[in-house]
């Protein structure tokens, strides 16, 4: 183990270096750029023996890693916002073709109007595509999760692409100490990819053929099962990583003081840091509050959510993404989990932090106050001029 001071993006690049992919293909977009710049630098210096394909678009970035993964290569790509939307068609292709592609997504708001700051609308568009979506909240977690993503994706009972997301700038460009694995440690954790490739000239395979209504649905069901399998695989790999290297994140969700909490805020990503500070302040005042940070957006951790809520008196859910004409993606799922398990507590749905707007410790204190008062329903947080 070696300690370095790295930004979230550089942490991703170091993890990719340790995973030794054969092919890396990406197209630049702020705030993802420094990920691929760093990887290109590793390759040019001979520190990583991979092919870098400097594609002309994100659609081609995903298409080229699909081609490479289909013939047995380990691959990496990364993008943000407009780039993810531009490659959207190919994202479904990657999952449908059951290819263990790993992609970094530095979350950024979607235009118009232009905004380069964080917001989770981009990564959430993947949620029905068959991608596993993991969300990291620090540079260290970006490093650890990117490595683990290869293990999850390549697990035979999963065989699905994995997106590892982290917030623009707050994580992507913020430097922190990061422990990175030595070559030997990495080798122990991440083995070479073993899989039959499409390319067998004696027994030629065909990937993506036309299917009739008698077969398509079963193939979709297989993906659904693979997602279910991923629930335990994600937990197990987090455990294994923890045993080997001393860092664990709780698997699908990271709970902070949830055990005896009466009031809990559910959220995703780096905002969890300020939320913890607010939690500490209220705890000192004797109020039992907690934070549940969802790490696995897909597969969605229903069981964990129900566990966390089983003692709670009221909760809030922060959706850091555009919510138009309905409820936020997190709120919908958490409400479904509660309903299914017969837990009837007030849920405050908070939509906010869009386009990089800060959600401060003060904001979280205020959200907790509303939760404690039993406020329900959906509010847009911190609107100038009010709702």
């Amino acid at each position: 183990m070696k300690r370095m001071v790295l930004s979230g993006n550089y942490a991703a690049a170091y993890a990719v270096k340790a995973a030794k992919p054969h092919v890396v293909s990406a197209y630049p977009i702020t705030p993802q750029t420094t990920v691929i710049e760093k990887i290109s630098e590793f390759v040019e210096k001979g520190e990583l023996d991979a092919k870098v394909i400097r594609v002309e678009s994100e659609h081609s970035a995903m298409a080229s890693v699909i081609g490479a993964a289909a013939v047995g290569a380990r691959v990496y790509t990364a993008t943000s916002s407009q780039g993810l939307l531009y490659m959207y068609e190919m994202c479904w292709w990657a999952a449908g073709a059951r290819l263990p592609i790993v992609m970094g997504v530095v979350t950024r708001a979607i235009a118009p109007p232009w905004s380069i700051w964080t917001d989770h609308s981009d990564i959430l568009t993947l949620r029905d595509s068959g991608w596993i979506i993991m969300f990291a909240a620090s540079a260290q977690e970006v490093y650890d999760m990117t490595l683990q993503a290869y293990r999850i994706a390549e697990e035979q009972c999963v065989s699905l692409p994995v997106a590892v997301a982290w917030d623009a700038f707050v994580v992507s460009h913020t430097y922190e100490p990061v422990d990175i694995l030595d070559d030997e440690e990495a080798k122990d954790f991440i083995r070479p990819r073993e899989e039959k490739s499409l390319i067998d000239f004696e027994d030629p395979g065909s990937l993506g053929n036309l299917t009739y209504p008698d077969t398509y649905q079963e193939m979709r069901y297989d993906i659904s099962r693979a997602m279910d399998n991923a629930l335990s695989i994600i937990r197990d790999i987090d455990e294994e990583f923890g045993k080997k290297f001393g860092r664990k994140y709780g698997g699908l969700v990271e709970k902070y003081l949830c055990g005896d909490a009466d009031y809990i805020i559910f959220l995703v990503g780096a905002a969890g840091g300020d939320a913890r500070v607010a939690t500490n302040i209220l705890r000192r005042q004797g109020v039992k509050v907690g934070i549940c940070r969802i790490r696995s957006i897909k597969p969605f951790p229903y069981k964990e959510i129900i566990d966390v809520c089983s003692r709670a008196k009221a909760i809030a859910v922060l959706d850091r993404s555009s919510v138009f004409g309905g409820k936020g993606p997190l709120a919908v799922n958490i409400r479904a989990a509660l309903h299914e398990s017969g837990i009837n507590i007030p849920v405050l749905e908070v939509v906010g932090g869009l386009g990089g707007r800060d959600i401060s410790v003060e904001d979280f204190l205020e959200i907790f106050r509303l939760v404690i008062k039993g406020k329900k329903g959906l509010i847009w947080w911190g609107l100038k001029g009010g709702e």
Partner: protein
Amino acid sequence: MAHKFFPKEEFLLKGHAACPGCGAALVLRHVLKALGARTILVIPASCSSVIAGPFPKSSYSVPVLHIAFAASAAAASGIVEALDKLGEKTFNVVVWAGDGGTADIGIQALSGAAERGHDIIYICYDNEAYMNTGIQKSGLTPYKAWTTTTPRGNPSFKKDMPGIMVSHRIPYVATISPAYPNDIVSKIRKAAKIRGLKYIHAHIPCPPGWRFDSSLTVRIARLAVLSGVWILYEYENGVFRLTGPSRKLVDKSKRKPIGEYLKLQGRFRHLSERDVEELQKLVDERWEAIRKDIMGENA
């Protein structure tokens, strides 16, 4: 007659789902014979996704990656780079894409792969419309041709796709026709020996799309060449050379009138005499430019 020179082995299997008289099936059959078993096909959305037949069968007895409409050249880039890294030695990566998948929605990915110089044989099978979706105009539909989206004739000109590829300075660009299988095989084999992106453009008569009887495919393909509408040539490292019967057609008197080619096809039935003259003039202008090129008069 020509077939005795070709390998007996078939890689386009019986029972494939192409229409009777499909020019694409004819050309693909010869392309695969020329390249042999160590060939990977990358096929975007097109008639050829259907010709493959439904899962779990495939009428292509080589490995195939079916891919989204715009994505074939990029997917091929990934395959080539991955196999190189994985230590796989002798193989051909072939994109087999329609005119829409090449000249319209796929042109960006193709341009990128060409500029990067990836070792791919890219074949555009040009049936001059979006046939899979029911005969809509593409960027390679001929001027004035009927399609379902140009019911009064196409107001646009056909893009010079091989010319676009020549301007990428790739090592090899060639045109082929199902009427001349020897020419197909020799060009494909030559392409397979060259490193970099090789672009081959095939003229593909299509009975339902062009509105002609399925017995006429080869005759129409041949008339296209003999009337000079479809020119057989190759550019090797930027040097132009006419091939096969096209070599003799610089002299206008050797070319058949375009009308003979047009009149067999329902898609040109609505043309007036003046329209035909206009199309003839376009063909003659193209040949005049070629003549000047060969004579060095354009230098």
